[in-house]
């Protein structure tokens, strides 16, 4: 452990990310900025975590480092030279494993070496070595579909390690696994890393699991969204193996929650509550959150032991929700002014308490009132339907409007979200067959 710490201090930067910006094209006009002015250095001997909500651009950054995409501005230097395309010293582990189903475990691991054009014997020798290291012996001739998720990700790890990369990139590598398997794999990997058995110099991992980040990383970059940038860098200098119940561990976790629920700085000062979704007015991007989740979270916070105010890490662990699941629901409650999220806590407003306590019909009425008041797109659709003599409007009318402000996918997702909320609130009807909104349900 001590040697690692010294290395962290002494290590020279392997990777420099300087003022990187990335944007994706949308309907018309300005491209959507997903990363803005991201700068950091990766040093020899450290594990760096990129942590943030979905949409904060952390995976995009990882893909830029992997050379799978190119930034529109800024530069990424790998070992002092600008990166252009996938580099031989950077290997990636994928969330979905990305194994070739027609290749056996051994063949999957050998693939990266074949691409290097090494001699047959050496390929075999090194592949078997990696398989051995990662605990896959005996599975050489198995096909991925015969393996459990945990074993598959071990193949993914072996495949990345076998090329002896300088930097190992992990894109939510443990998030597709069940809790127990993920923990085993994390511990195994950490043990190998601490014992210096891994043929790598540094690790960059993307995660949305705060505890995972604190458990594994030497440094954690907390990203905020719209556009994604590094809000804060936290050092984790606890010795390995780390204990989740250690007060210092909890402290760091709490600090990250506070950081991630901090109010965005840039918005108007007059607002009492700030919405976290990108875009203004009807162009706000909405998440597809079911009304069941909205009610469920409100009820959980209203009930004991929280009584209207809950610590996010606490309620996340009680509800078995990761932040990628929890934050969008909390943000939606905030959008509807049923709750306020701040400093790692979520607090129900008076309306929120009434919402949580109400019976079905009253709850729907309350939801409808807040939907019209605080979600401009829902109010807009309702108004258009009222103004039209037929009380009908095609979906494309609103979709076109949205596509001016966001990508086609987000426009579709946003409209889907508002349809689902509007249906629950009985604000309007929508028929997928006809692709049209209606004010009232058909009489029959």
């Amino acid at each position, binding site marked *: 452990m001590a040697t690692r710490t010294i290395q962290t201090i002494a290590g020279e930067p392997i990777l420099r990310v300087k003022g990187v910006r990335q944007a994706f094209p949308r309907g018309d006009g300005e491209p959507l900025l997903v990363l803005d002015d991201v700068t950091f250095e990766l040093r020899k001997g450290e594990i760096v975590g990129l942590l943030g909500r979905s949409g904060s651009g952390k995976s995009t950054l990882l893909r830029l480092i992997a050379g799978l995409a190119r930034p529109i501005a800024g530069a990424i230097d790998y070992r002092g030279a600008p990166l252009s395309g*996938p580099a031989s010293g950077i290997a990636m582990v*994928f969330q979905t494993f*990305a194994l*070739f*189903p027609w290749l056996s475990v051994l063949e999957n691991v050998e693939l990266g070496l074949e*691409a290097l054009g090494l001699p047959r014997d050496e390929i075999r020798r090194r592949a078997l070595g990696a398989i051995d290291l990662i605990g896959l012996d005996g599975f050489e*001739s198995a096909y991925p579909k015969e393996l459990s998720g945990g074993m598959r990700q071990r193949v993914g790890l072996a495949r990345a390690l076998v090329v002896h990369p300088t930097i190992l990139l992990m894109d939510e590598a443990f998030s597709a696994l069940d809790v127990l398997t993920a923990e085993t794999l994390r511990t195994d990997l950490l043990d190998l890393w601490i014992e210096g058995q891994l043929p790598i110099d540094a690790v960059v991992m993307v995660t949305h699991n705060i505890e995972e980040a604190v458990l594994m990383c030497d440094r954690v970059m907390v990203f905020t969204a719209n556009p994604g940038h590094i809000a804060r860098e936290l050092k984790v200098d606890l010795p390995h193996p780390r204990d989740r119940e250690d007060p210092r561990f909890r402290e760091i976790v709490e600090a990250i929650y506070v950081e991630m629920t901090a109010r965005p700085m840039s918005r108007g000062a007059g607002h009492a509550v700030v919405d976290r979704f990108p875009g203004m007015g009807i162009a706000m991007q909405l998440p597809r959150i079911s009304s069941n989740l909205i009610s469920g979270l409100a009820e959980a916070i209203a009930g004991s032991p929280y009584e209207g105010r809950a610590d996010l890490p606490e309620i996340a662990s009680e509800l078995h929700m990761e932040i990628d699941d929890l934050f969008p629901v909390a943000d939606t409650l905030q959008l509807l002014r049923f709750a306020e999220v701040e400093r790692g806590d979520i607090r129900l407003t008076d309306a929120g308490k009434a919402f949580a306590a109400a019976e079905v019909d009253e709850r729907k009425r309350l939801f409808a009132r807040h939907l019209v008041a605080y979600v401009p797109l829902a109010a807009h659709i309702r108004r258009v339907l009222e103004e039209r003599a037929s009380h009908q409007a095609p979906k494309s009318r609103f979709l076109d409007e949205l596509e001016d402000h966001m990508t086609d996918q987000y426009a579709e997702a946003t409209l889907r979200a508002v349809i689902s909320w509007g249906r629950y609130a009985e604000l309007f009807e929508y028929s997928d067959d006809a692709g049209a909104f209606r004010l009232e349900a058909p009489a029959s």
Partner: protein
Amino acid sequence: MKLFRPPVSVTAGRFAPSAWDGGAAAIVLALFVMIAAAAHGMLAPLSTLAVEPVSLDPVNLPYYALRTTVRMLLALACSIVFTFTYATLAAKSRRAELILVPILDILQSVPILGFISLTIVGFMALAPGRVLGAELAAIFAIFTSQAWNMAFSFYQSLRTLPGDLDEACRSFRLSPWLRFWRAEVPFALPALVWNMMMSMSGGWFFVVASEALTVGNTTITLPGIGSYIALAIKARDMTAVVWAVASMALVILVYDQLMFRPLVAWADRFRAEQTPGAPAATSWALTMIRRARLIRIVITAIARVVRWLRGRPSVRLPRAPGVLGRLLASRAADRVWAAAVAVVALLAIWRIGQFVSTALSVADVVTALGLGSVTFLRVAVLIALASVIWVPVGIYVGLRPQLAAAVQPAAQFLAAFPANLLFPAAVVGIVHFHLDPDIWLSPLMILGTQWYILFNVVAGASAFPGDLRDVAANLGLRGWLRWRKALLPAVFPYYVTGAITASGGSWNASIVAEVASWGDTRLAAHGIGAYIARATAAGDYARIVLGIAVMSAFVIVVNRLVWRPLYAYAERRLRLD
């Protein structure tokens, strides 16, 4: 269990022949002998055809069957090469795609039988005085019936390689060559094998037409099952027709067992997602190949060559540097390219118009359109009839796994049977009962293609989820309600796929099926197929072009206006996953 074993030849046990070796060796030897015989016939001087004309003596049938088989195999090999190059180019280059995909789309929905006679002269010139020239022309004709759907399926697979696999390839810096063999071809294989089987069935249709070639005034008849059938029909020899049918059935069976079954079973492991519970395809021939050590030695050697090929560090395509490179890759350059393509297309249309208009009048176009409508009506009625019959049967069969296992291969087998074989019965019947050929020739069109509806519906019903079945039973759904609310919607996506294939095939078949002959008796129905067939027989290129253009227009319009919306609807609303 360790994966590593010493090299094949070292261990004593490895060389002890297994029981499978006997059968395998016999088959391999027989194949060598047969290929040699066929090659000998192909390279013979042209005059031998006159000395040894095709005879109806059934003793010759095995040899004819062999020649036809080799022809079809060679055509299939050409189709695979074509698929790997054409489809890859279309998928990799944005600009090539702009031209290649529409061309493919049209080629795969249009019969180009009529144009075959144009190419013969060229092929004859390649090998003057030898049978080889005519052979090449015949192989080309069969190739044109096989290649398009294979290329299209491969193109679609290349475009739908899962995103994470694509990123893995790029992240591990696989060369384009390695990526092609390690990722893209395996991913495309299951669909490609399936399309190869369909192509083979389609090829039989053309065999009869392609083995008798006309150059100017002389007709070259290549020895083969196709020309045997043609001769038998001309001579009104019913016994010979029965012999031909029998040997054709045998050839199709051998093909199925020795080639496609093993291929399907082998390609099964390349499926990207494995539906749990789906029975794995099995094949005795594949088992034999895997168990027989002699064959395995051969395969290991081949695999080594393939690996060597694959391992070649390939040259990366150089990119034009600097400003020029950026300019070439820009969107503006794309537009210039699109404009250039449009100009060339317009020129081509103008040129065709010019060619056709010197020989044809507006009245001809009106006639062709009218005949096209008649054939359209015929296809529509036939598809409707086939649906009414085969959808219920298919669902009934599909819900009973054991029955389905027996029916599926039979339906695939029947799909390979060309309509020509039923001509004698049809003609004799129509003449005897004084029936209207406009109506009674029609069933021949759908004879081979109706099976696509059946086996797709069977597949759909087999995939009907158990929980939905249980819930239907639990709710007491029965009779029409059960069909309307549960079964029919569940098989609809499969049905649409089958019906698209059946309808496309029927248009193609109309060229053969709207004109039937038995000896001197010729029956013709009104329709665009008969029109093209007549024009082809007369060598009237203007009318061939017109007929094919009209048929293509009908096929494309029907695809766009009927099938595509139905398909989209099925994808959107009725998919079960």
